[in-house]
Structures are given as C-alpha cells and as structure tokens.
C-alpha cells in the first residue's frame, strides 16, 4: 500500500507545486559581417542554456506554489470570458474545462445505462431455461473480456466512412453518413461502447445477487398483487441495493478516468477527457519538453474530482452498513 500508492501519490502531489526549468544565461553576442572598409558588427542579447562540464543543460527546480494549477485551470482566461459574458465558451475554448465537461457528462450518462442494462441482462438470464444459461452468460460476458482498446477499435472500424455498418446504414437510409465528422455522434458511439463494455460487469454482480433474493418475499409480493415490474421495484432492487452502490462506486472511479475511448476513437479533435489531458501534458512537445508539473496538477485535480463524485455514494453505503 505504502510503496505503491502512498509514495507515488505524495510525489505527484509535491511535483505539482514545483517547476523544473533549464537555466538560461543572457549573453551578449557580437555578430560581425565582413564589409568595407571595416566589418559591420551588431551586438545582441541572447538566452542560452547553461551547460555543465559534461555539456548537458543545467536545470533547476523552483517552488511555484499554485501557479501550475492556475495555468492548468487558466483562471485568468476564465475570468476574462466570464466578465465578457461568454460563460459557455469556457467549455469549448479551455482544454481543462472541455475535458472536465466531457468526462463528467460521459460518467453521468453511462452510469444509469450500465446499471439498467446490467440489471436487464441479469433478469433475462435469470429467466432463461437452465440449459441455455451457460451459453447466454458466456456471450453476455464477452464484451467485458475483450481488451478495451481492441474493443474500441473494432467498434470504430464498423462505423468509419467505409466501415461495414456505415455502408449498411447508407444503403438503408440513402444518405451519406459520416459518424466521425461530428462531435455528438462520436460521443454517442463512445457512450455506446462503454455501456457495451462495462454492462457485463454489472450483470455478473446483479445476477449473483438475484440468486439470493428471498423467494418467500417474492411470492408474498405476488400474492399481495404486485405486478412483475412492482416486484422488481419493491423486492428485487432493494435486495440488490448494496450491489448497485458497489457497481456505482467502481463505475464512477473507472469512467472518470476515461482514456481508451479517446485513443480508440481518435476523438482528440472533438472531445477530450481529463485523463487524456494528463497524458497530453506528459507527451514531449515540439522542443522535447514534458510538462510534468502540469500533468501532476491535472492528475491531482482528476483525483479530487473522483473523491467529490464518490463522497455521496460512500456516505450512503456507510450509513446503510451501520443500519444493517
């Protein structure tokens, strides 16, 4: 725990307050061009990296406090946009907020879908005949077994301009379809992919939970006059509640760090996520520098986001546990 979680966490936290830069020296450089009668010399000032004796650039790390956070959050730009009345431009112009809004939206849209689809599959599997159960469970679990990036790519290839499904849809509708030209259609595809990929996880847990539903209570409900839907609402769902909280917790944690979809669907041009932003900071830029402190700040902010999202669910779970 300490070695693999606490130490990296603390170092990332510390790193986000420091910036490591190459030390530059300002030197006067006299440039002379041969001419007649004398050469023309101009003197200019230039910054050059200071080299150590092995001829490597000298770097120094300075404490910058919350400056990195300010630069990731672009507080100045936000203030300016708000004061000029373009509040909503924050979410399209500034990377961090663009990523935040997509990540949140993605997390909150997929959550009920995953819970709902998971529960539906579980109820369906619970009702099929014994002989069919094995194969049905296997097929339902397949999407969960597939490597996320492969899954995302295979879905993408179905929908690219010359993909199989695009061709079929074009044939049916008679219109030209380009799923990857619009931000909304890519987002839709990403949501679809995530639900397809994660619902089996919810299904397995819910299916296990369904096996321990009290049969007497279900039959009491039948006799009391509850319809199939009312039985699910009043007996099955309350019974599955601890599992629903568990799946919610896992899903919030997992989806708030959405990353594979961005890469798999190559959606950077339209939508980005917080995790992808961190990744982007870590990628070397044109000069070969990695913005490590920005990446640290952005990952700390991601973590804070997860904690805020999880707090109400954790609180509820703890309360239920105390009660039960």
């Amino acid at each position, binding site marked *: 725990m300490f070695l693999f979680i606490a130490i990296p966490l603390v170092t990332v936290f510390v790193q986000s307050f420091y910036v490591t830069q190459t030390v530059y020296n300002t030197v006067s450089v006299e440039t002379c061009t041969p001419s007649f009668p004398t050469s023309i010399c101009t003197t200019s000032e230039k910054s050059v990296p200071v080299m150590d004796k092995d001829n490597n650039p000298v770097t120094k790390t300075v404490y910058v406090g919350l400056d990195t956070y300010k630069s990731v959050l672009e507080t100045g730009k936000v203030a300016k946009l708000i004061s000029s009345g373009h509040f909503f431009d924050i979410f399209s112009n500034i990377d961090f907020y663009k990523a935040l809004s997509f990540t949140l939206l993605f997390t909150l849209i997929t959550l009920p879908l995953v819970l709902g689809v998971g529960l539906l599959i579980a109820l369906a599997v619970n009702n099929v005949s014994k002989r069919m159960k094995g194969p049905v469970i296997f097929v339902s679990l397949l999407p969960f077994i597939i490597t996320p990036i492969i899954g995302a790519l295979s879905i993408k290839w179905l929908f690219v301009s010359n993909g199989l499904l695009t061709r079929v849809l074009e044939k049916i509708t008679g219109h030209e379809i380009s799923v990857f030209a619009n931000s909304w259609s890519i987002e839709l595809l990403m949501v679809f992919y995530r639900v397809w990929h994660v619902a089996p996880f919810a299904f397995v847990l819910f299916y296990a939970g369904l096996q321990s539903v009290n049969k*007497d209570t279900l*039959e009491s409900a*039948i*006799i009391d*006059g509850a319809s199939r839907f009312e039985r699910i609402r009043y007996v099955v769902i*309350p019974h599955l509640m601890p599992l629903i909280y568990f799946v919610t917790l896992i899903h919030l944690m997992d989806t708030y760090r959405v990353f594979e979809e961005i890469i798999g669907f190559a959606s950077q041009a339209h939508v980005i996520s917080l995790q992808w932003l961190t990744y982007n900071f870590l990628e070397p830029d044109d000069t070969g520098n990695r913005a490590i402190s920005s990446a640290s700040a952005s990952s700390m902010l991601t973590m804070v986001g997860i904690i805020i999202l999880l707090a109400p669910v954790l609180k509820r779970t703890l309360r239920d546990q105390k009660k039960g």
Partner: protein
Amino acid sequence: MAKIQLKNICKRWGSTVGVRDFNLDIEDKEFIVFLGPSGCGKTTTMRMIAGLEDPTEGEIFIGDRCVNGLDPKDRDIAMVFQSYGLYPNLTVYENIRFPLKIRKVDSATHDKRVHKASDMVELGNLLERYPRELSGGQRQRVALARAIVREPNVFLMDEPLSNLDAKLRVSTRAQIKHLQHTLQTTTIYVTHDQIEAMTLADRVVVMSMGELQQLGTPTEIYDKPANTFVASFIGSPAMNLLDGEISDGKFIADHTLVKDIPSGLPNAVTIGFRAEDIQVTTELEGDITAPVYSVELLGDSTLISIKIGDALLIAKADKAFRVNIGQTVSFIIPPESRHWFNKEDGARIDF
C-alpha cells in the same frame, strides 16, 4: 368468505408425482390443517390453491369460481410464509400497508386499516421499526397483519410457526386460533407438527406420498386412525404398532400373547395401542412381557419402552412408577383400546 373445492387435483413434474388425484371440500369459515411429513405434497397443494403452482390436472374452486387460470392476486387470498416473506426495506407499517397500496385501495382508509390489523396482532407500538429490528415472533405477527389487512376470503398459512422457538410457538398458535375465530375466514394451514394440527384444526387432512390418507376432526383422527400411517403420525408418542399373527383366536408375536380378540380378523394383522391406554406392571401376566429397553421421566408421567423385534413399544405409566432398564415388565392392553390394521395394506379393520 368462501368455500374451497379441489376436484381430482394432480401435480406432476416430469415423472415425479407431487400430488395424486386429490379431492377435498372445505367449508366456509372452516379451519383446515394439511398435515404430513416433508415431501407429502401438502405445501404443493396449498401453493396450487394460492396460484403459485398450476395443477397438472383437476380443478380448483374458490367460492363459485373456478380459479385455475387466475393469477394469485385475483384469487382474493392472503398467505403467510414460513420465513415470513416481509419486505426488509419497508417499516412494519409499510409492510402491512403494502397489499393495500399495490391494489390501489382508497388511500384515505389505509391508516385505519393498518392500525386495525396491527392492533389485532398486538403490534401497535412497533409500526416504525424495520423487520430486522424485530424478533421472529414479531416478524410472523407482521406477516399475519399483512395477511388480514385486506380482509381476504381465504387465509393460507405455510408452516408459519416452524421458525419460532417452542415457547413462542405455543403463544403464536393460540393467537392464530383466536384470530381465525374472530375473523371467521376460511383458513388452510400447512404443518408437519401434529400438535399444531390437533390444537388448531376444525378438520385435519393427513397426507402422505401425495395422497390423502384421512380427513376428519382431530378427535376422529386420533381415536380412529384410518391406517397405520395416520396411526404412527398422530399422537405424542405416536401409536404403538406391532405386527403379528392370529391363531386360535389369539394374537401372537414375540413376547406377546393377546387374548379376547374380535373374531373375523385376517391372519396377518397389526395391533395398535396408545401409550396412555396401557397399564404397566412388574407382575408377569400381561399381554406383552419383555425386558425394559429404556425409562424416560417426563415429570407428569414416566415413559417405559420395550423392544419387540424392530418395534419400539412405549407405555405411559404413573409419574411415581419406577423400574430399572433390563428388568422385565408386562403391558396390559385393555380390549377397548386396541386398534386393528391389515398387515398387508395397513388399512384399519373396523367391527
């Protein structure tokens, strides 16, 4: 209030037979108990009346309606389950109110009806609790209140006392009896406990292997068991049964010679007698004379048992009666307390 009729009911799962050609007329306001060992089909029969199982053959009437195709909710019944079947996420109040809410009964009447039902089972001060905060007996009372709140035509109770401890069982049993007497609702009660059957029932249905063995009042069942199965199932201890042969107007078995027997008995018979009807004596001139197998002190009486072949015969002697294990005793069976059964099929032989 309703009569219930079962006509030629069969229940089969593949080649397994649950209930075989079962016929029964239950009178309005009657308290009827299905009694039998595990797997005898008593619960299956009740579940078919409830609509939780469909009969393979036969018809079920509640009142004048044939309810074969009806859903449980349309049969106007209420059921109490062995493990209570309460909704754990709802309070006692909401549990009792649930049938009213689901059936969209006028909500203005809910409060009054819930309180009336909960007062009848003395739950008045527990309405805000959750089922997990209640004892077993209280939970079963919640289940009873939930059953009576809707004032259905028929109550079905599936071993409602089995999960309770002995003391609670006695008090809840009395409560159920009182409740049925007050409400005058036709009640079917399933149990494997013959004491519950004897104490509660207007009539008892004794079942075994999916078939009806005997239908009668508790006294009839106790005094005139229709066959050796019923005889061995009813009473505590159950009736003693001993196989033997008739020769020269006497019943003969190991250690046994019973004189003054009725004429017309077949050769192979089984004699039956209840423990409380026998006299035990240490003088060796009774009907059965054998060494004592065990002595059990009950407080109000002493049980003396002897072993003849595989049969363990028990007699109830006075509480002051003392013998040692191994000492020889005699059982004297008064002629009016003897029951005779055909050894072949176990059927009662009446004269």
